[in-house]
């Protein structure tokens, strides 16, 4: 019988990398997950605990993939605590992917929102001129800076880190840096993933300059396949129509940047 990608497949964690005190990357082998498109995600089962949507992280070895998880509530903490040799279940990949332009590119990531950005970097063309903005609250929350530089070593590029408290890189919100850059440079494509307020500002800044921008959204997810409705944002279903949306589309969506739904499906303010 054919493997159904909606049926959870058990994978064994082969390697764990501590990115920060609260962020870990868990590496495993799976052909399908190793070659997903940038922006695509999986539903990740932590047996006995929960199941979470997770962007699929690159693993820089053929046939391997990873998840980079920040420990937060019980579910993500459960995943964070999975040890080498332990099993997780994976279904997917789900969702669409970024429409990668060529030329001058700006990637804006915050926290684990950097995960799809890293995979996007593996798809850039040799002639692209790439700027990566990494936003963090504080020095000890910065990760993937070296990885980004490494992935871009054959391109003209800059990796700029901002911290809210100025303990590392530039001081200030990452979106202040976005504002500065879009005023200076006419980017061919801007891509963002991270906290919704960051994406909201980035989208509006880019849009006000008439620049092409895409954001990868997060919402409560139960099914990942467009059945349960829990991930809706206005009339869009993030798991099926997204997670990547054009800035233009998002600007006309009255929930983007303002509301998300809780587990009962009630709209809550961000």
């Amino acid at each position, binding site marked *: 019988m054919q493997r159904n990608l909606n*049926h*959870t497949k058990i994978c064994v964690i082969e390697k764990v990398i501590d990115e920060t005190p609260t962020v870990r990357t868990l590496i495993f082998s799976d052909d399908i997950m190793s070659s997903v498109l940038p922006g695509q995600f999986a539903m990740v089962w932590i047996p006995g605990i929960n199941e979470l949507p997770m962007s699929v992280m690159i693993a820089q070895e053929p046939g391997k993939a990873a998840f980079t998880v920040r420990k937060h509530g019980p579910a993500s903490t459960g995943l964070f605590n999975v040890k080498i040799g332990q099993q997780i279940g994976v279904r997917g990949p789900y969702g669409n992917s970024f429409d990668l332009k060529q030329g001058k590119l700006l990637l804006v990531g915050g926290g684990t929102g950097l995960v799809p950005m890293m995979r996007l970097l593996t798809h850039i063309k040799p002639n692209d001129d790439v700027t990566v903005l990494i936003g963090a609250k504080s020095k000890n929350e910065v990760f993937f800076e070296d990885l980004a530089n490494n992935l871009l070593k054959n391109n003209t590029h800059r990796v700029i880190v901002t911290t809210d408290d100025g303990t590392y890189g530039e001081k200030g919100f990452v979106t202040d840096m976005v504002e500065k850059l879009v005023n200076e440079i006419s980017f061919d494509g801007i891509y963002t993933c991270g906290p919704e307020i960051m994406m909201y500002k980035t989208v509006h800044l880019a849009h006000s300059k008439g620049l092409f921008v895409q954001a990868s959204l997060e919402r409560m997810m139960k099914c990942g396949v467009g059945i*349960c409705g829990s991930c809706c944002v206005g*009339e869009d279903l993030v798991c099926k129509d997204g997670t990547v949306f054009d800035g233009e589309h998002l600007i006309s969506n009255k929930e983007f940047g303002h509301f998300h739904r809780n587990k*009962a*499906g009630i709209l809550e303010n961000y």
Partner: protein
Amino acid sequence: MEPSLVTSIGKIQLERPVMLASGILGISLDVFNRLYRSGAGAVVSKSLSTEPWDGYPNPTIFGINGGGWINAVGLSNPGAQNFAKMIEPNKDVPIIISLVGSIPEDFSTMVEQFKNSKVIAYELNLSCPHVAKVGLEVGDDPELVKKIVSTVKNSTNVPIIAKVGLGTTHYLNTVNAAIDSGIDAITAINTIRAIAIDVETQRPILSNKFGGLSGTPIKPIALRCVYEISSKYNIPIIGCGGISTWEDAIEFILAGASAIQIGSAIGDNWIHVFNDINNGIFQYMKRKGYSKIDEMIGLAKKS
């Protein structure tokens, strides 16, 4: 003359016979609008309770190797009051409100909360197979079903539909009780209680262990129920369970359904499924020379 897709489920009249099933994408008016534009003849809301429910922790749904889905979302919903507010702006969409509760008053309270909303019917969920004290546990008690149906009938003039499924009491007893108490139509069927175990970790996959089987695997069983109900009772029926193609839809109509609902197929084929099925029905009617859906309902019983 071109065939018409208009169909009547008793007093409920629909432009098109293909509806959205309850629990599928059914928590937002914006999405309802989109589905209606995509071809749904009506949309049924997620089953609503008197209070908001979070539902079960994930995993709540997954796909089966070989086709079909098992879910135990646990009836997560924003509660009837919140939902009534959400759909206040509704102008165009034929909305059916699905309700779930344990006692007659739960249902009448909720109906009251929708009295100013534009809803074309209520569907009483007597058949969710994986949440305690509601759904099937209610449907399994024909006396309670009678009380609920009578109470709702006394609270509103809007048509009410009973949604049945395979429980511990034979579903025809539930159908019988609902008809006795004046129900306007029957939806058959809900998901069928099921389980799946992961052999590597040796545990049930869903957090609730048990869930409901939906999608293609249950179609021949759902079709059987529609055929049995329509053979035994003179009541409008909405067919539901595993419908994913226009042929499936026609099978249900030939078995006695006046309309059909689509759930899991959306997970497999996305929302194009509404127009695909509508078009398929239309072409079939044209080819066979039917002008109205009504002419086809129950034909398979005549053979």
